[in-house]
């Protein structure tokens, strides 16, 4: 006997499409509708590294409880890609619903009895109503969205409103789109009444939240942070950061009178040039940044070493994808931590930030610019494809107009003029390891110095004196200690358990969800790391727990490496919980994996207070 899955506002739907077939906007229309119905929604676009004709999936989780990570498993599949039909069919959960284009009969091998088939003759409907192939192609997607609206009992007006606002500027497209929605809706109503146990009903759970891509938020952050120069080179999944920066600059940063830009964006010839541009601009007193992904980080490595050693602010956004090498360019991962933290030859350490949602992409970008200038060093925003390129539900962007940028220790002409002692570019005057810098052109007689990646003394003069060199290197460690006090603090929850879970970045959604489940049976504390180097709270958390699960989306447990290496803690305290398949980590995997390993760990009883 078949057990249909029934659920209201709590299920996962997978759209299986063909790349470049126009499905993306239809699928977004659907997920946005869920959001507008006041129901939390998480959508993930799983697309190929090509432009047209290959399989692409869109995974939408509808979750009244507000779980925004991947859950794992599919309750409903919209199977409109023949290439992957078999797989999509097989991977559907028992009791699930298989929605397909019934213009063609399903192959005989499709014999599952534990699922519900929902056939809609999409092609036939299209052919009946549209003659132009282009229109047929496009509206086919809209038709299935209309059908879903019926099947899930979604309020149809929310779709109509979406269409209207979307095509506000091309009004003549509104009617045909609504018509297509209607076609699907009506067909489903007529042929599939009450066959689907999954519903999406209106709630008011989304408050003032917004839906935004992490990259857009980072780009916007750069605008608000006052970045004026961007050097970049296209690479998936980072490209949209600079595209967003450009878009928002064009909206907010064009001089009204002259039409001239208060920003300079240069598409460089490669990543080496991109970061060179950033370094040149930062050196010259502008806020500058670049965005890239793994291969770009590798190429930037020499320049990162220069910036570290000559102490030039750099804001770099690494939107991580699956490595190594070209890897899976359209899949996510958190595997550039070591490459970023210890970029380049010689002894180097870079500041990393780990945003977990778009709102934080915005905030960390703003903080990142401050840190880069305060610390005069590279700061790397460690976002990833999942965060950067998917539209996430998150808190709205906020801005405190009283906040002023921290431009760090930069001497003005005035200050230079009245400088008492001899100024030294690399002199640690304040004991925090951070020297004072000057911007070219500031003062006619004072403050000019020579920046170099070769060894230098406190007055920026070239030296081959090993003692002087070593002194500089040790000072950089003092600065590193200062960094620990300035970076965003980790979020800690709970304090009584002997077991802790550590996670960061986009694992947060699933980790938070998994923790809810795990905590029903175990006492578990948790810490979300937001930055490297680690503040005291990170050490304290680790010291306070016997067993620490570290959740990461890489093979080699790179965050664990950083923790052990920087905090000198025993690696055997840590249990690795790793996911490396390029798909965002799921809550169910976490629950299963941690539960299993918890069994191995002796004591899970709370510590004595």
């Amino acid at each position: 006997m078949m057990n249909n899955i029934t659920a209201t506002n709590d299920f996962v739907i997978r759209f299986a499409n063909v790349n470049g077939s126009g499905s993306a906007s239809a699928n977004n229309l659907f997920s946005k509708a869920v959001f507008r119905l006041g129901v939390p929604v998480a959508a993930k676009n799983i697309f190929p590294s090509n432009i047209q004709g290959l399989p692409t999936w869109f995974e939408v989780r509808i979750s009244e409880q507000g779980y925004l990570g991947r859950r794992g498993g599919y309750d409903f599949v919209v199977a409109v890609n023949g290439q992957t039909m078999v797989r999509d069919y097989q991977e559907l959960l028992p009791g699930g619903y298989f929605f397909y284009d019934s213009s063609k009969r399903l192959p005989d091998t499709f014999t599952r009895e534990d699922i519900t088939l929902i056939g809609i003759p999409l092609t036939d409907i299209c052919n009946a109503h549209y003659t132009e192939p282009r229109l047929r192609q496009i509206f086919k997607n809209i038709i299935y969205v209309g059908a879903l609206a019926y099947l899930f009992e979604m309020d149809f007006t929310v779709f109509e409103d979406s269409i209207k606002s979307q095509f506000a500027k091309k009004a003549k497209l509104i009617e045909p789109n609504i018509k297509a929605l209607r076609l699907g809706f009506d067909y489903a109503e007529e042929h599939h009444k009450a066959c689907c146990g999954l519903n999406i009903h209106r709630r008011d759970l989304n408050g003032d939240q917004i839906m935004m891509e992490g990259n857009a938020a980072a780009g916007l952050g750069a605008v608000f942070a006052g970045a004026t120069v961007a050097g970049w080179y296209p690479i998936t999944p980072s490209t949209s950061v600079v595209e967003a920066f450009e878009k928002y600059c064009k909206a907010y940063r064009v001089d009204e009178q002259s039409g001239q830009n208060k920003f300079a964006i240069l598409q460089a010839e490669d990543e080496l040039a991109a970061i060179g541009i950033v370094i040149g601009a930062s050196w010259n007193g502008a806020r500058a940044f670049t965005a890239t992904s793994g291969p770009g980080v590798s190429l930037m490595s020499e320049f990162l070493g220069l910036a570290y050693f000559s102490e030039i602010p750099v804001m770099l956004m690494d939107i991580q994808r699956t490595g190594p090498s070209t890897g899976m360019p359209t899949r996510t991962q958190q595997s550039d931590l070591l490459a970023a933290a210890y970029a380049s030859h010689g002894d180097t350490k870079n500041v990393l930030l780990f945003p977990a949602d778009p709102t934080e992409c915005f905030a960390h970008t703003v903080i990142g610019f401050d840190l880069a200038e305060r610390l005069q060093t590279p700061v790397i925003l460690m976002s990833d494809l999942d965060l950067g390129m998917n539209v996430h539900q998150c808190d709205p962007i906020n801005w405190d107009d009283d906040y002023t940028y921290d431009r760090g220790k930069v001497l003005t002409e005035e200050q230079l003029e009245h400088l008492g002692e001899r100024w030294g570019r690399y002199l640690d005057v304040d004991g925090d390891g951070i020297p004072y810098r000057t911007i070219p052109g500031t003062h006619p007689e004072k403050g000019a110095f020579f920046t170099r990646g070769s060894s230098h003394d406190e007055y920026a003069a070239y030296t081959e004196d090993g003692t002087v060199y070593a002194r500089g290197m040790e000072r950089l460690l003092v600065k590193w200690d200062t960094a620990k006090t300035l970076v965003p603090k980790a979020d800690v929850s709970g304090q009584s358990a002997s077991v802790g879970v550590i996670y960061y970045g986009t694992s947060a959604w699933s980790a938070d969800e998994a923790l809810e489940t795990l905590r029903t049976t175990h006492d578990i504390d948790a810490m979300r790391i937001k930055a490297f180097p680690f503040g005291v709270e990170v050490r304290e958390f680790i010291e306070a727990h016997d067993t620490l699960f570290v959740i990461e989306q890489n093979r080699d447990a790179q965050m664990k490496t950083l923790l052990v290496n920087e905090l000198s803690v025993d690696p055997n305290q840590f249990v690795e919980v790793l996911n490396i398949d390029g798909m965002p980590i799921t809550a169910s995997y976490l629950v299963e994996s941690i539960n299993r390993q918890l069994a191995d760990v002796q004591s899970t009883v709370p510590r004595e207070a």
Partner: protein
Amino acid sequence: MTFIRPNFRHPELSTNAIGQSIKSYEGALSTLCAGCGHDSISAAIIKSCFDLNLQPHKIAKISGIGCSSKTPTYFLGKAHGFNSVHGRMPSVTTGANMANRDLLYIGVSGDGDTASIGMGQFAHVVRRNLNMVYIVMNNGCYGLTKGQDSATADKGSASKKGVPSVFDSIDLCQLALQLGAGMVARSFSGDKHQLIPLIKAAIRHPGFAFIDVVSPCVTFNNTPASTKGYEWVRDHLEATGTIDFIPAKSEITIDYPPGTSRQVELHDGSELVLQKNAEDYDLSSRKAAMNRIEAVREQQHILTGLIYHNESAADTHGLINTVRQPLNELSQQTLCPGSGVLDSLNESLR
């Protein structure tokens, strides 16, 4: 370094129009080899900036890595300098220029730094017409790493080791022309009467100005068989003319007979006077410049002088339409949209 430059100067040391003595344009004492051509180029840069009454602190000097790239330490001590990484001077200069369009950017590079590891960045900074002076101190070898052939080493010319280079040399002037540089010139480090006016012209040129300066490496490239050695170069030099700098006066005169002199008016109204060979020479034609270089090279000679000059093209800022005010001067208030725009922005994302 324990060298100490004698601090004493003649009290009546002459000053320029902004009251600076030449000392204001000097830098630290050179640590290059005695007689290195690069030092002569540094001297020419110093003299040019002095003559042009530039404020030293409004200059940024940027370089890559190499003996040549060390020279910015040896001139313009009051200017900020940046000795970046090998082959990457162009991108660093690009960034610096984007941040502040009001400084003068003097980029110094070597033939290894530019024609090998830096080839990509060189090509693209030319293409963007960045407003800068780009000087290659071209010794046909890798001085700092002890004399390996560079890509500008002439085929058949032998370095210290005596093994002749087997590859065709790259002519950076031709490449710069090809890629659209607005001013292209070549000179010889020992010929200050030609070099200084060219540097001045490059400084005044609004956009990308390229000077390839043949600069003998006395240590590694002075074997008789080498074609970049001082003697050889002297013998084989073919100058297009003697260039003298005269402050802002008249316009460019394009039509003039062979054997006379030609004035090239620069951006700021100042001029170059070009002493012309018997042959006609059209400074404003890229094609003519190309052919001329090629023709002279076919005779195994090196064409020097101002080779091409065209001020019409917009520089990078012009092309990407940035505001007049340096970007690094814009205040938070100007740059940050503030909370005001967020209501509608957030709303648009719901």
